[in-house]
């Protein structure tokens, strides 16, 4: 294809303004994407991975990023761009920031950063002012989309609130509106419990009680570690488990005192991705991932894949490998990203969260794709999941 007809194709298809064409007869331009993780990341304790506990990853998300690069190769050949991945691990914010700084000098402007929330924010601050955008693929805390939001961070992983909105939409659609919340001792458990309270308030469900749990078998603590006892007293339609580590939630289904569905941390789980999703090309994405990584694709893998795909799309449609045009396309309203889960995805301008559908998965089945039918938004129904612009606490 000649440069001229590529330009026309792109202008007609999407590009809002003419931009320089990537030279076709020259050597390919390199578009390197960085991938950073934490060498000793406690979240990547894989002892529960064989149970596919949804709260925990099943392997490093680098596999998802690599699949994104493989998927980009054909596009790269056509537009004469070499999409590559640079990988590094760090053990401190300083070392991670040094790595990013070095990459920026080599022309790397987009970095998938699989880091815990506090380190992600610290890294974003440390590289502020440099021409680089970080992708958050694993920190689900809503604070990162609110008071701790950063302009140089784009979140491809959904927030806790998007997860609880999806679950509560489903419960409301079934009229299972009285929810008992079991909340763990961790700060992230409290963050999830806050999110489900907000979701319930927003969609008209009712939190009948919030009861604390602890892990263990100490008989003196049985009111907090025995699911049957904890779920005794009062009536409720569903039990929501606010458990960021997933270990307690894993054992809640079928142990409740009343015969009620378990949701949230186990049972019906709001997910960015699931290996059993079979519509919208998902079986092919899963098959490609499984062939490459020899395991199921977890939502962190999907978020890393989606981040690389977002960059690929932005290069393709902006016809550039320069930082600003690519970033502007990435953050702009023309973004039309295919995540193999329904409506096209784009980045919310108010908090840089990737708007996306959420899968409601229970074990080996995807029960529904949220937004659930009937939950409508004035401009984009995907914005019924997560914090919408008027309520956003994010100020860039």
């Amino acid at each position, binding site marked *: 294809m000649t440069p001229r007809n590529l330009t026309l194709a792109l202008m*007609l298809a999407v590009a809002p303004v003419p931009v320089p064409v990537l030279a076709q007869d020259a050597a390919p331009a390199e578009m390197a994407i960085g991938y950073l993780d934490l060498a000793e990341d406690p979240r990547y304790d894989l002892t529960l991975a064989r149970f596919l506990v949804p709260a925990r990853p099943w392997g490093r998300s680098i596999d998802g990023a690599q699949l994104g690069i493989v998927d980009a190769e054909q596009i790269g050949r*056509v537009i004469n761009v070499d999409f590559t991945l640079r990988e590094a691990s760090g053990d401190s914010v300083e070392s991670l920031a040094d790595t990013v700084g070095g990459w920026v000098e080599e022309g790397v402007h987009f970095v998938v950063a699989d880091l815990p929330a506090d380190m992600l924010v610290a890294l974003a601050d440390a590289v502020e002012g440099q021409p680089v955008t970080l992708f958050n693929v694993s920190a689900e805390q809503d604070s990162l989309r609110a008071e701790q939001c950063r302009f140089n961070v784009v979140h491809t992983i959904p927030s806790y609130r998007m997860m609880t909105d999806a679950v509560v939409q489903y419960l409301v659609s079934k009229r299972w509106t009285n929810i008992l919340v079991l909340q763990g001792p961790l700060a992230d458990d409290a963050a999830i419990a806050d999110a489900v309270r907000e979701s319930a308030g927003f969609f008209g469900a009712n939190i009948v009680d919030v009861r604390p749990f602890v892990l263990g078998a100490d008989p003196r603590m049985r009111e907090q570690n025995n699911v049957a006892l904890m779920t005794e007293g009062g009536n409720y339609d569903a039990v929501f488990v606010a458990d960021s580590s997933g270990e307690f939630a894993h054992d809640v289904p079928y142990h409740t005192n009343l015969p009620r569905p378990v949701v949230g941390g186990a049972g019906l789980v709001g997910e960015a991705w699931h290996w059993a999703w079979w519509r919208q090309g998902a079986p092919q994405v899963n098959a490609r991932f499984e062939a490459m990584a020899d395991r199921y694709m977890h939502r962190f893998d999907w978020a890393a894949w989606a981040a690389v795909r977002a960059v690929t799309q932005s290069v393709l449609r902006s016809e550039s490998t320069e930082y600003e045009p690519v970033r502007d396309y990435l953050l702009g309203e023309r973004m039309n990203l295919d995540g193999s889960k329904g409506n*096209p995805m784009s980045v919310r301008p108010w908090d840089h969260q990737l708007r996306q559908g959420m899968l409601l998965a229970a074990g080996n089945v995807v029960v529904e794709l949220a937004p659930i039918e009937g939950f409508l938004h004035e401009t984009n129904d995907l914005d019924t999941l997560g914090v919408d612009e008027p309520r956003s606490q994010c100020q860039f």
Partner: protein
Amino acid sequence: MVVQRLNRYMLSSAAAGLALALAFTAPAEAAGTGYVFVSNERSNNILVFDPARDFELISEIPTSSRPRDMKLNADHTLLYVACGQDDVIDVIDIATLSVVDYIPTGRSPEMFVLNADESLIYVSNEENSTAQIIDVETKVIVHEIPTGAEPEGVLLTDDEQTLYVTSEIADMVHVIDTVSGTVVDNVIVGTRPRRFEIAADGAELWVSDELSGSVTIIDRETNMVIDQLEFLPPGFRAVDVTPVGILLSEDGSTMYVTLGRANHIAYVNVATREIEGYTLVGARAWSLALSADGTQLYVTNGLSDDMSIIDLDTRTNIRSIQTGRVPHSIVVDYDPA
């Protein structure tokens, strides 16, 4: 229930008859049964309806797993069906309505075409990310051409020199030289391109873009994008419009486009590119086919497990016929003569 038992009996006796037929007789005469064949991805069968008998269900043909695209041979004695889960194309004998042969393919065959003398099959394998050209008789892969991820639509030009293949993930149409088996050009189109039709006396290639809600029109001489049509049936939002199926009317004047989740089909005037109107069909409309006399349009609806019948004179949905689970494609066995 009675129908099903009868069919099973018919199938087994047909299979016995077929063995004899294969052994002692020449290929069956061109039949033109008038039957409508619907492949069902999740019930692993092809349902056979007879429009002449008020769409009575004539037969359920068990196939390999996940049957999708179907094509008849030129004299309509054989029906080929791509079976995505079992990596084969089943060959069905129209006279006996049973599977008589298999052609192995790459992983997860989805859409395919045959050349005019039926010596070659051109198939997209969505999990391999390749298009294959397979010799029908020897079942040998003549060419295997790497494509972008998730190749889907395939279209062979009349001169059989060029094969077009969409890649759903790479957002492009590959232009493949069938002789050398190489990609000679690529055209960037909308998001998640699916299927094709050639229009305007061969001058234009129309491509459905599922996630852009559009059809991209490519000039075939220059491989340049010359237009993009966006669809918006009443009461829907742009993001709900997911075009997949695309079919040219017999006289070449009208393009029919299925709009997926928007549950409508659209009519486009090919000459003016004006969208003339929409008709409501079932849930997630994908494939479509014209009736034998060209007066009706059949549309499969993957989320309501049925087939809509559109009267093209009035452009109204006059009937829906229950299919198997997740109907994929429709083939009409019109009289080939």
